[in-house]
């Protein structure tokens, strides 16, 4: 009897003997209005559905995404234009002192390069003659379209960027994008005035590569970290730390011999690649208008044809 009375007393004072479990309803409870509760529940379900549809490349979701990006992008550029101008001015002012020394160093470099240019011109002519003699079938010439990086995602969730080269400028699905030093990524979305580039470091990126000297093939896959991983290496691979990695051109999506990076570390059957791209200062990019990529984008539009 005493126990029952004590339990009642405890309950009437609002104490609980056991810890309440955390339920979805208790999370929703503090949301004041009923429509907030409904929107919260519907919102979570809708978001999960959206993720699945986006991942499943549902056409309508892609179209919504492209049109929303087209609408939002000019707004973001307008908002940040004054801040960018000020920061650029400050940076240029800072660099003014170093300009004189840099100019002297460049003069020396130009003299050296002029000497090398004469030798290179001879080699190019010799190469051309040899190709003619052996009826060599070369890869198609690649046109270059230069643009700027508009947005650059800095989180670990996704590694992509929007660039100012769109369909109007000749951008197509699957075209490779380069910095001045190496491969940045591949175009995965094209709108009229911009494109989205999937970086080589993204978890969804997989590129066929070879080592420049030994021509050992592998697949370079991103994992959202700074260092993409080389997978499916040959068991008798001759790869070594410091070897240069270039695109193999297998599959026809990318032109061969685009520089990507160096091998930073080898762990048994896989290796880490250090990219040549300076991600921190990536501003100007070059889109390679490769003919094979163009053919592929047409195929992707009409896969049943």
């Amino acid at each position, binding site marked *: 009897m005493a126990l029952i009375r004590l339990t009642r007393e405890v309950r009437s004072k609002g104490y609980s003997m056991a810890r309440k479990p955390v339920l979805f309803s208790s999370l929703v409870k*503090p949301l*004041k209005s009923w429509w907030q509760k409904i929107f*919260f529940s519907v*919102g979570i379900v809708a*978001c999960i559905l959206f993720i699945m549809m986006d991942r499943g490349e549902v056409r309508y979701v892609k179209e919504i995404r492209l049109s929303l990006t087209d609408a*939002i992008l000019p707004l973001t550029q307008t908002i940040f234009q004054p801040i960018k101008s000020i920061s650029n001015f400050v940076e240029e002012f800072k660099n003014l002192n170093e300009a004189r020394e840099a100019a002297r160093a460049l003069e020396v470099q130009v003299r050296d390069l002029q000497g090398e240019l004469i030798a290179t011109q001879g080699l190019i002519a010799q190469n051309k003659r040899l190709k003619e003699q052996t009826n060599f079938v070369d890869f198609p010439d690649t046109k270059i379209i230069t643009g700027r990086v508009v947005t650059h995602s*800095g989180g670990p969730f996704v590694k992509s960027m929007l660039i100012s080269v769109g369909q109007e400028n000749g951008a197509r699905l699957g075209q490779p994008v380069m910095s001045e030093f190496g491969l940045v990524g591949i175009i995965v979305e094209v709108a009229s005035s911009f494109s989205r580039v999937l970086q080589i470091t993204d978890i969804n990126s997989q590129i066929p590569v070879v080592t420049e000297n030994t021509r050992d093939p592998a697949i370079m896959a991103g994992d959202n970290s700074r260092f993409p991983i080389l997978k499916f290496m040959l068991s008798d691979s001759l790869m070594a730390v410091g070897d240069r990695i270039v695109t193999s051109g297998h599959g026809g999506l990318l032109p061969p011999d685009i520089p990507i990076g160096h091998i930073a570390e080898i762990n048994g059957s896989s290796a880490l690649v250090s990219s040549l791209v300076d991600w921190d200062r990536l501003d100007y990019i070059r889109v390679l208008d490769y003919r094979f990529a163009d053919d592929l984008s047409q195929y992707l539009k009409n896969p049943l044809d």
Partner: protein
Amino acid sequence: MREVFSKRLFKSFKKIVPELSILFLAILSVQPQSLLGNSVISPFLCLSAVFYWSLHRQGHFNVVALIILGIISDILTGASLGFTPILFLTVFAISSWQKKNVLLKPFHLIWGVFSLVSGLTFIIAWAITSFVSLQYADIGSFAIQYAMTVISFPILDWLLSNIQRAVAV
């Protein structure tokens, strides 16, 4: 008449200060060579802002606005549509749930709660990223961004509390 109009305008502006601050941070975080630098990993500032406003301005701060802001963030970063809204809603729901226990506590306790809430959110983010791409995402970069987000929280809290005081939201 003009004074009345300007007062009304300011009143409306005050109402959307939390949403505007999150939008600003979302755009700021994807700017190349922005104030934060074009670093590979930067703090998830929007998450801190959502936590702050969920605690301090829950009345006007609504779920629909969070979903829209999350989708804008997804569009800018290139994440799957719906990914960031899930993270925002998680933070919003937990901070609303624990608001009474947290709000008037000393700052170091609020900071501790934020580190727990954001920790859970980052685990969810990692799980979704890995699930969507059908492989384990690099946990190191998530851990680094989590640490940077937690470390940067006091600065953002100070900044947002000043904005809140200035416009008396």
